[in-house]
């Protein structure tokens, strides 16, 4: 078993509604894994459970075989799982570089150098002195990723990295992910842009109503009837037809 990150039988309910129901997902070391599914299928909830932002009602989360279920977010981060958010969380009135240094425990010069390296790698070093609030939506996503990279996590969870981002920047983000992956980083990516997911991921897991309905390589997932059914929604009244 080579799963670097694994959730096993996760359950999570909000006020009686099951957001996740016996949700088991595996991410193998060194791969880019995709997590897709229609709106409300539980993708972000699973991210929240993995990263400690939501408590699982049942089930377990393992990182490299070690149980990390319901560990606090800062602890999860320290253990090597970095995460970006669907709606970017940056400090708009700090500069780009200041954002990078907010949680920096190291000596100033070293931290600064490391931060600039990441900004440079993601192509936004030229904006380091600008207020983060002036960045475009896509650039904010890059800043958030840069911030995560500084901690050098083993696994990076990206929540809709391509959502609302223009095409050239989408391609840029995909290229950077490929490069990081080639250098050994493992990814789990939630994304609605199918070209992005299918073109980038080694394996795609599909959630519907909080449960895994399919998991496999993109080409298989793309033609899987169960996946299409999940996206097109439940047939309410098949009998009532004509």
């Amino acid at each position: 078993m080579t799963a670097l990150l694994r959730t096993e039988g996760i359950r999570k309910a909000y006020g009686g509604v099951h957001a996740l129901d016996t949700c088991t997902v595996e991410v193998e070391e060194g791969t880019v894994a995709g997590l897709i599914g229609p709106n409300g299928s539980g993708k972000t909830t699973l991210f929240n459970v993995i990263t400690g932002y939501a408590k699982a009602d049942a089930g377990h989360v393992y990182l490299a075989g070690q149980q990390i279920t319901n560990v606090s977010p800062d602890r999860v981060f320290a253990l090597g799982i970095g995460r970006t958010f669907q709606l970017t969380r940056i400090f708009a009135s700090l500069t780009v570089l200041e954002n990078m240094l907010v949680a920096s425990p190291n000596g100033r010069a070293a931290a600064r150098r490391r931060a600039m390296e990441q900004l440079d790698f993601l192509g936004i070093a030229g904006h380091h002195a600008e207020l983060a609030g002036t960045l475009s939506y896509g650039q904010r996503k890059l800043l958030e990723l840069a911030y995560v990279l500084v901690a050098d996590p083993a696994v990076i969870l990206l929540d809709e990295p391509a959502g609302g981002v223009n095409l050239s920047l989408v391609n840029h983000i995909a290229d950077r992910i490929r490069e990081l992956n080639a250098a050994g980083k493992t990814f789990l990516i939630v994304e609605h842009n199918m070209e992005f997911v299918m073109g980038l991921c080694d394996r795609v897991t599909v959630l519907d109503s909080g449960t895994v309905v399919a998991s496999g390589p993109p080409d298989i997932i793309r033609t899987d009837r169960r996946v299409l059914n999940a996206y097109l929604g439940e047939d309410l009244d098949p009998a009532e037809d004509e």
Partner: protein
Amino acid sequence: MTETGAGDQARSVLKITDLVAGYGGGDVLRGVSLDVAEGGITCVVGPNGAGKSTLMASISGLLRPRLGSIELDGRNLAGMSPRQVLRLGVVQVQQNHSLFRDMTVRENVELGGYILGDRALTARRVRAVYEVFPDIAGWAGKKAGSLSGGQQRLVEFGRALMLEPRLLLLDEPSMGLAPKILRTVFAAIRQMNAAGTTILLVEQNARAGLRLSSHGVVMESGRVRLSGTGREVLENPEIGALYLGGAVGAG
């Protein structure tokens, strides 16, 4: 765009031609053309980011389109304010719940007719709403906030009927509702249509939405990619490629 379909004989209430619209960053709608047939239910479906909500916002006047026209009975709505569009009889029920929770159900319904400015007419219209949805009459004195999500949706529908809309826009009415309640909401849409209301429906549950509708449209990346009768669209194998990626016809 693939024309699969018949059913274009009916008169169009709304005729959208080459609509281009977006939010500063770029165009979300990239040349959308579609007709809404009088007396029918036209359902627009498509994956996230297809432009469905942008289409709704353009029609209701919340977003000013950059190019193209939106004709209601031959009159161009593009660039009008939401208030003007409302006065012409285009009423939208928005995605999120929008009742005044601390007011009664009856007061909420009455508010739907606030631009009527006529007490007697308002009272008549409330009675007409109760005829379409007798359940709402039963909840009249309750606080709107005490109703379930599905019940609130019904009251929102009733409130929209107060203006006897020429065109009713429903933006993802199934959002956040359990499957069992969905059935009630879809039945209510059917009832409003049976009572003579022309409906343009944007729906996330494509299967249920298309099955309910006389006409279906699939949008993807800001364009209309499939259209026809609801059934034709639902049974078109290309719908899979539109939702799951891959060039149409290649998957």
